[in-house]
């Protein structure tokens, strides 16, 4: 039976959004809150005494899992799902708020490429420095120094200060140091996206070597392709919770289809929504420039998003604010349409009806986008749904030139002019 290299039990991490310990506290704040406590006669002391008073964000919640020694696990999920927080807790950088994690063996973490690199130090010196920061003993670095330099392809610049390095060289060297860590457990956060294509391929190869060497690796990536090729199993984190764990290909499959699935479900039946529910979205529809109902649009099309809402009451809705966030396949918001942004007041709305948002000349690059909808009535959030709908954007003639930038060079289209001056 395999030994577990990592085991967590109901791991949770809360961040305070508001409240006494937010940001840089000043002595004055601390004093005045102490005085306030004294006046109110509340006991001061133990943590969590007024946890309910504070706005908290649970970046991780009830995360229990185990990773067998020698396993390579991919951690997937959208932005803000808690992936990086989980790595930081496992690495010991931040303490969990609740729960417990046990890691068997020494831990190497690579959460950022080139942490601790000093521009004034030479490449070789930085290898030692960075190695020490990552917890590599000096003799190990010494033994593997040539290998590290060779892998990074910077042999000729070992004695050059890193500030004269190109950004590619810099990244390669930093990755190389980390890739030669010899710890039993390795935590890696999204680092394959460094350097040019050739080096990326090399990195993926190196990660493959690592995984074959019997090391336990936990690996966060937005690149589902990398996860599926490197990892045997995968964890899917969603809003701080462990949603699914299992064989990598299966988890990835479920993850990919989840976004589409959710969006396919009738909006009225969705329960994964927040808000007080006084007014709810019932449907989302898209129309093109000619007013025809569509499920996809071309780049540069005029697009209208139709939001059908319904109130539980029968009185008119006095002051309404509504927003649509377009989120790309990586989970990154691309842009937001919000009536307050364009100073369009929505007042005295019928208790049920449609809100229409018209986007002239849609500037989104081809791809699939999920919509997050929010509805605020009279200052209170009435309804909010992530992934309320999906829209597919296909290639179109945005610029009127019949051309589009290469996909890797653009996520939005921006109008522009060129001229010459002499």
């Amino acid at each position, binding site marked *: 039976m*395999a*030994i577990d*290299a990592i085991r967590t039990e109901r*791991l949770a991490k809360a*961040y305070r959004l508001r409240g006494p*310990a937010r940001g*840089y506290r*000043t*002595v004055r704040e*601390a004093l005045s809150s102490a005085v306030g406590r004294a006046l109110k006669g509340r006991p001061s002391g133990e943590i969590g005494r007024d946890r309910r008073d504070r706005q908290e964000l649970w970046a991780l919640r009830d995360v229990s899992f185990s990773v067998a*020694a*020698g396993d390579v696990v991919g951690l997937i999920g959208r932005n803000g799902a808690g992936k990086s927080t989980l790595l*930081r*807790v*496992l*690495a*010991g*950088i*931040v*303490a*969990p*708020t*609740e*729960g*417990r*994690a*046990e*890691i*068997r*063996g*020494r*831990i190497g*973490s690579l*959460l*950022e490429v080139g*942490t*601790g690199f*000093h521009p*004034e*130090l030479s490449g070789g*010196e930085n290898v*030692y*420095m960075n190695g*020490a*920061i*990552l*917890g590599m*003993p*000096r003799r*190990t670095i010494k033994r593997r120094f040539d290998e590290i330099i060779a892998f990074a392809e910077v042999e000729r610049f070992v004695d050059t200060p890193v500030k004269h390095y190109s950004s590619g060289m810099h990244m390669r060297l930093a990755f190389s140091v980390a890739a030669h860590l*010899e*710890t*039993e*457990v390795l935590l890696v956060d999204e680092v394959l996206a460094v350097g040019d294509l050739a080096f990326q391929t090399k990195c993926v190869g190196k990660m493959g*070597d*690592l995984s*074959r*060497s*019997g*090391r336990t690796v936990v690996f966060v990536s937005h690149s589902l392709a990398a996860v599926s090729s490197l990892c045997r199993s995968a964890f899917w984190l969603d809003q701080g919770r462990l949603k699914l764990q299992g064989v990598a290909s299966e988890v990835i499959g479920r993850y990919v289809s989840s976004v589409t699935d959710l969006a396919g479900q009738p909006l009225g039946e969705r329960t994964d929504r927040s808000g007080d529910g006084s007014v709810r979205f019932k449907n989302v529809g898209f129309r093109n420039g000619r007013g025809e109902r569509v499920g996809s649009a071309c780049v540069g099309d005029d697009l209208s998003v139709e939001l059908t809402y319904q109130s539980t009451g029968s009185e008119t809705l006095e002051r309404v604010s509504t927003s649509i966030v377009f989120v790309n396949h990586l989970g990154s918001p691309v842009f937001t349409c919000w009536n307050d942004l364009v100073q369009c007041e929505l007042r005295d709305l019928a208790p049920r009806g449609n809100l229409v948002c018209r986007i002239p000349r849609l500037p989104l690059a081809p791809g699939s986008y999920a919509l997050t909808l929010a509805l605020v009535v009279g200052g209170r959030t009435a309804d909010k749904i992530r992934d309320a709908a999906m829209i597919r954007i296909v290639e179109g003639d945005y610029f009127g030139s019949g051309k589009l930038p290469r996909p890797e060079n653009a996520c939005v289209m921006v109008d522009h002019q060129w001229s010459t001056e002499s």
Partner: protein
Amino acid sequence: MIEGVGTGAAPETATIYVRQPGRRGGLEDLKEIWAYRELLYFLTWREVKVRYKQTVLGAAWAIMQPLFTMAVFSLVFGRLARMPSDGIPYPIWSYAALLPWQFFTQALSSASGSLVGNANLIRKVYFPRAIAPASSVLFGLVDFSLAFVVLLAMMVYFGRRLTWEVVLLPLFLGLAVMTALGAGLWLSALTVRYRDFRFVVPFLNQLWLFATPVIYPSSLLPGPWRMLSGLNPMTGAVEGFRWCLLGTSRPGAMLVFSATVAVVLLGSGALYFRTVERSFADEV
């Protein structure tokens, strides 16, 4: 190919690292700092390497600072104010005190900012956080040794001989190190949470200078006060330096005060540091 440890499953004997809320035992902390001693060395080494890069005078700055301070003090306090100096030429008399003093102020101010200054490191990598202020103090010792060479040259110039007491010098240096580290632990941890301390430290350094007999001889203090002045551990260090190097009157019972306060400062600093250190990555 990958070699070394980590081939095959982790042995059952491997160390188990636990992540949970709350604190750990103090002994574990010390063991961990020891395990990370190489990082301590490298952080100090990085400071040494980087500190005087792209300066024309380079490491000479380590000497110039105490040397110029000594010159200014000699002129203003020695010549103009005719400050008594235990019958020893004012320049070397003040320099002997400036050695531990400059070490102390420099170590204290860089230790205080060490956590905030290494914020990126703290957010991205785990290491025992006390390594940061400790390496600042260690780095202060590098400059100290350079400035010490100058003192030896001055001893020759002023025709003074070393006496056997010089072997006790490390004790007084130790007193200054403990004070700097203790105050550094306090202030670095406080600065993470309350940025106010960034303004407090330079001011504190200034006040502390006047509370320490660097410019003036402690013989100016009336009897009982002289004893109480030992409550400032840097007084003990400075008096000790002068005694060991220049043969001024031997600091007596006040040293007990100095040593006690230094121990308390270091102990309480370490305790406070430990209670807040786990939240540094969230707050820095």
